[in-house]
């Protein structure tokens, strides 16, 4: 399967990833090579195979609905690049 520069730009937008034009060019060339390699999976007959997403030991984990202490906001909030009181600060969202 081939991938175009517009595909790369479209995917980059979905991933919220800002790319320069040079990066788009480079990624397009490299992804072509990688996708061509990955295409070998088409040779495998998987008609009767169920997908495996976790190899071992997967079961739902329940716990009782009892509140527990969380991380201390005074230690967490200061790690953010912009904050005010107990809040993360972001650029204006609502006009």
């Amino acid at each position, binding site marked *: *399967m081939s*991938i175009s520069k517009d*595909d*790369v730009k479209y*995917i*980059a937008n*979905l*991933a*919220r*990833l*800002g*790319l*320069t034009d040079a*990066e788009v060019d*480079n*990624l397009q060339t*490299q*992804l072509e*090579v*990688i996708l061509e*390699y*990955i295409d*070998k*999976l*088409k040779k*495998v007959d*998987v008609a009767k*195979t*169920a*997908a*495996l*997403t*976790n*190899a*071992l*030991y*997967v079961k739902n*984990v329940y*716990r009782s609905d009892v509140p527990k202490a969380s*991380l*201390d906001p005074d*230690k*967490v909030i200061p*790690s*953010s*690049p*912009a904050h005010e009181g107990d809040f*993360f600060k*972001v*650029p*204006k*969202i609502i006009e």
Partner: protein
Amino acid sequence: MKEKLNTLTAHELQGLLSAKKIDAAQIIADIEDRCRIVEPKVRAYARAPFFKNASNAGLGNSELSFIPAVIKDNICSDGDLTECCSRILEGFRPPYDATVVEKLKSSGSFIMAKANMDEFAFGSSCETSCFYPTRNPWNTDYVPGGSSGGAAASVAADEAIFSLGSDTGGSIRQPAALCGVVGLKPTYGRVSRYGLIAFASSLDQIGPLTKDVRDSALILKIIAGYDEKDATSANIPVPDYPALLAKDIKGMRVALPKEYFVEGMDPDVRKALIEAKNKLGSLGVTFAEVSLPHTEYAVAVYYIVATAEASSNLARFDGVQYGLRNVEVRNASEPPLISMYKETRGKGFGAEAKRRIILGTYVLSSGYYDAYYLRASKVRALIKEDFDKVFKDFDMILTPTSPTPAFKLGEKANDPLNMYLSDIYTISANLAGIPAISLPCGMTKNGLPIGMQILGKPFGEQDILRLAYHYEQNTAWHKNKPSL
């Protein structure tokens, strides 16, 4: 003591400490001396080691009392810079300890340094670190492997006693092989990942890099076990791994997968593996050739599954809660918040991280999901079935860890696919969730270490450690030291 304490293992130091033959402060002094000489050449650490934490160590006669630990820069430790060697996590100091760190500390150990790594563990050479590449202690023109390159190099260069790395597709075992140390990837679920900054959640495991097999067993025993903070951690008792090492290995049945011993394999690696097999044979182990027919698809499956999961896990790095924020505006028609996400991620992630985010988003995107992600997850099931079949008749599988010894810095840096293929022998264990260990089994003509890999049944760490231990006791490869 004539021997410098930095060259010893944790279990040796522990023995000397409890016999009161050495003083804890001497360990630190010897390591500091060694770091001063070798760190400028090797650059195993993401930033300068901090010996101040030594004062917190001790705890009487615990198993790792006063023994310093080095941990990969993607494992959180309370208050210490933890940046995954990425600009996007610039300045991040976690407000908590990873479960493995908590366990090390309560065994008397302390965190001495964060090890250099490929950015977000994306790489097989330690060259994608945002700081600088780590160099192979055996020859500093060569890479140490990756992504836990700093963790492996620090132990090989004797500027650490042991370290913890993470392994998503071989990131503990491949650098262990390239640096001539012991690296263990435990069974999926054996060790809690709470506090490990996630790369691919269905594949990631934390494990030890050590100077010998006994230390590997000792550290695994300490870090393994159920943790309610990691829903994928297994509630299965932890064996006393060190106590089980000496048990006889006569009659153990080991499989040799023909797909791993193919044309084009490095001749020195092939020779070392044949000699290792003969050595184990002389100790009473029996061998037979088997087939793991879906091996050739492992790398393709991995680069779909791992990048898909990585693209989701890395969504959290958006300039809001931690690390870097970039508010430059390139496209004024875009809402400011969207623009901040894009510019922060565009500036903060390196080339390999961007490549994986794009590839991962692509294989999950509408219209391609079935062709890529779903198909890869099905082939993954076939790869696991291959192993299940072999383990009906065999206790373990023996393979090389890496098709080649260490390669030169820059040799594969601009060829992502070629770099991905250097994980060809290690990836399957992650896809199948099984444990695997790499240990030294030879040297190339050029003086670079060669590693062999032993793969075991799920939760069969005691078996692969035991086979590795008996091999090590009957060979001297692990005693080789690089001259730096």
